[in-house]
């Protein structure tokens, strides 16, 4: 394992220190906790808190700021944060209008965020939560824990964040977040694994010419492995899966995230986007806004995911609203 770190057990702490030192304009630290909030938190609006394991940077701390999150909780690498940390974030950002927790659909995240909500509720804070489950690589059956939450989560932060910024009530913000969730589908693939610092070795191994389709952002195994193929074929497969689950009609407006997993050159992400756009345009779909970059990473994993969000006029306006955070700025 070759990494630019000091101590595998200190990566989250040192990263958080680095974030605050880099972006004091946007974020501050809740002392003694792995929690980042807006520099001017709390404010008299509904607050949004998200979080999860670390290693997905810029998620989630990078999205704390005007128009997106109010607080982000960082767990150990790829491990949900604990309830006490989440509770602290909730307390730090609550401005009296209530707090919406944006949770990705993993048992660990749900259990820890739920315990935190119970604690917050018992302290008299209004808390609601939504669970993001955009990953179509996973069957959404009642026999499983359902689809995972991956890069589409950024859409939830953006749109629910804009709604809260615009003065939406907790119920309204929750409703719009749920509408977003119902309309996002994502899927990814990996060329090469990543190594959790504390583990010291890659979480999976791929042969020289092998790729993994549909793996999770924590290195969870995907739907299958196959030999590397041209980018256009890989993208076509992912888009087939996405659009099978989220049919789009001609004239439908959408937004797209082509998300790098941390170790993929931006050049390749644009080559991917070329095919994504071609497929959507070919169906008469109107792409309102495309985001290409590292939004929800898996440390240095090489690979990408594609997320498609179906828009209506409300979602579109909120998506295009301004935002100003360390990793997401939009006029």
């Amino acid at each position: 394992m070759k990494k630019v770190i000091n101590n595998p057990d200190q990566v989250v702490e040192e990263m958080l220190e680095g974030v605050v030192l880099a972006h004091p304009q946007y974020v501050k630290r809740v002392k003694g906790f792995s929690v980042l909030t807006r520099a001017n938190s709390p404010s008299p609006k509904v607050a949004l808190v998200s979080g999860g394991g670390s290693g997905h940077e810029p998620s989630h701390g990078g999205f704390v700021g005007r128009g997106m999150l109010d607080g982000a909780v960082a767990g150990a690498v790829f491990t949900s944060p604990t309830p006490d940390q989440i509770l602290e974030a909730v307390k730090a950002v609550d401005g009296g209008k209530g707090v919406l927790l944006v949770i990705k659909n993993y048992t660990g995240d749900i259990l820890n965020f739920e315990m935190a909500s119970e604690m917050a509720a018992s302290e008299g804070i209004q808390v609601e939560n939504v669970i993001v489950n955009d990953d179509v690589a996973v069957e959404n059956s009642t026999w499983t824990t359902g689809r995972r939450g991956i890069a589409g989560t950024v859409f939830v932060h953006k749109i629910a964040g804009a709604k809260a910024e615009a003065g939406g009530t907790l119920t309204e913000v929750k409703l719009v977040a749920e509408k977003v969730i119902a309309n996002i589908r994502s899927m990814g693939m990996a060329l090469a694994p990543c190594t959790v610092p504390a583990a010291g070795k890659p979480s999976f191994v791929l042969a020289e010419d092998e790729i993994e389709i549909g793996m999770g952002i924590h290195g969870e195994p995907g739907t299958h492995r196959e030999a590397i193929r041209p980018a256009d074929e890989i993208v076509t497969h992912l888009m087939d899966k996405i659009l099978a689950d989220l049919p789009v009609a001609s004239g439908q407006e959408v937004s797209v995230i082509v998300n790098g997993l941390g170790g993929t050159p931006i050049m390749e992400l644009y080559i991917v986007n070329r095919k994504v756009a071609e497929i959507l345009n070919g169906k008469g779909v109107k792409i309102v806004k495309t985001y290409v970059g590292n939004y929800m990473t898996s440390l240095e994993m090489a690979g990408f995911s594609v997320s498609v969000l179906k828009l209506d006029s409300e979602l579109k306006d909120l998506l295009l609203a301004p935002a100003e955070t360390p990793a997401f700025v939009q006029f």
Partner: protein
Amino acid sequence: MSHTAIAAIEAISIAISKNKEFLTDLDAAIGDSDHGINMTRGFDAVLIKVKGLPTHTDIGTVLKTVGMTLISTVGGASGPLYGTAFLRAAALAQGISCIGSHTAVQMLEAATNGIKERGKATSGEKTMLDALEPACEAFANGIKAQKSLVECLALACDAAYKGVEYTKTIIATKGRASYLGERSLGHQDPGATSSYIMLKALADFCRHNNLEVN
């Protein structure tokens, strides 16, 4: 006595640490390769916390400390689950410095039920419950048959071990491994394995120290 409880917890912590890599490797196959790391982080913190407790702390407080510490340091799925388990067991040992056989059965059952409720799971879903539920039953039967604590814990361990083996034969329907569908077959569940390891450490501890319930 509480220092015995503390020593038992120490034995469990050490066993978890020793199996850090093993548990992580199991999780790599069907999860996200962190179970050993999570559990070790938690029990390392537990070690420090319980060592700091005053000498005459009651067993309930010891277990509550373990539960709270696990909840606030483990994260992941296992943190709230094991944390809840210890808290539920703690509730039955409040103010107590010596555990009776009946209480021991109740505590193990309460712990297991805590996990079931928190995780909305039941046995057969390839989770820690596949080790804990049979262990509970075996332990209760042993006590009913008036066997010694050491014997009962041995029975519980055997049952848990079989439960771990059983998890290889089933498809996960809870937790991260459920994403795999059929591909989870053949792999043993990391959480079931850590449950077995904890029970085994407790059993060994009681045997070495000739502990008995009364």
